[in-house]
């Protein structure tokens, strides 16, 4: 296969019919593997990992906190990419995928915030601190809410897709700006991102590393969250495509009658 046809291969899913047919086939795989990964990862993490010598059993919260926080950010990134694709290539599926992803992002952000608060209470002695990471997530949460509210407020789907896409682009820039502003504003309690740093994973960085005992189930949970996210996005995008089709059918019917 030449590069050109390969590059074309992904765009064929911009056809709603093709998208629905394909997702119908692959969805069961994603649902089941997400369920397996999450079940194994969470059970492993909850029942079969030792307590941390400093944090005690609260370390088990990591299996929910870290994956949900990762997905909260990745979900926004995915919306950013699909918004760009919509603005440049005008594929409806792309805009609808961004719409379908937003509520998932809200839930992920909420889980990260809630588990963070519950974890912070015994560790830092407070449910909430205006720590840069916590604050950034709260701001991300607000961005998600505004984005969804704008989608809901506009009647015409194409106008809504355009406006939300631009909001997503502008919002991304301001979200990054806010992240730096917040960092400047307050140095925090939260430890650095210890999971994804290479040194932490290979164990060369011993000060804050997440040891292998915790890492394997955590890795499984992250994969589980990713798979669950993909399954939900594909499924919800299908729903949005069908809702759009209903609208179109009704509009055509009214125009004909």
């Amino acid at each position: 296969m030449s590069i050109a046809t390969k590059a074309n291969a992904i765009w064929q899913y911009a056809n709603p019919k093709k998208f629905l047919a394909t997702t119908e086939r692959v969805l069961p795989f994603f649902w089941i593997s997400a369920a397996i990964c999450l079940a194994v990862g969470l059970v492993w993490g909850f029942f079969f990992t030792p307590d941390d010598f400093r944090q005690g059993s609260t370390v088990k919260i990591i299996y929910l906190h870290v994956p949900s926080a990762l997905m909260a950010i990745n979900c926004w990134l995915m919306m950013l990419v699909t918004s760009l694709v919509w603005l440049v290539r005008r594929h409806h599926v792309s805009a609808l995928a961004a719409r379908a992803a937003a509520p998932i992002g809200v839930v992920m952000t909420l889980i990260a915030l809630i588990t963070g608060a519950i974890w912070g209470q015994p560790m830092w002695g407070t449910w909430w601190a205006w720590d840069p990471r916590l604050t950034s997530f709260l701001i991300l949460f607000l961005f998600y809410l505004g984005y969804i509210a704008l989608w809901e407020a506009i009647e015409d789907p194409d106008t809504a897709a355009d406006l939300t896409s631009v909001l997503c682009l502008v919002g991304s820039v301001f979200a990054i700006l806010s992240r730096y502003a917040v960092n400047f504003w307050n140095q925090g309690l939260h430890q650095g991102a210890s999971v994804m740093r290479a040194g932490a994973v290979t164990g060369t960085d011993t000060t804050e590393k997440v040891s292998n005992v915790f890492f394997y189930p955590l890795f499984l949970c992250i994969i589980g969250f990713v798979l669950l996210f993909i399954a939900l996005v594909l499924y919800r995008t299908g729903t949005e495509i069908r809702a759009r089709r209903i609208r179109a059918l009704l509009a055509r019917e009214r125009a004909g009658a």
Partner: protein
Amino acid sequence: MMPDLGKYTEAVLSSYALSLLLLGLLVVLSLWRGRKVRSEMEQTELRISRDG
């Protein structure tokens, strides 16, 4: 069976419970709306193909 969570039992259990509840809610609501929209679409398609 149940691991000893020490003095943090409440924190760990409540965070698991809340997170799973939220995830479950998200999945159930997505599936519920998906089903509804799907059947609605099929009915609309059927009605339109019958009428016209």
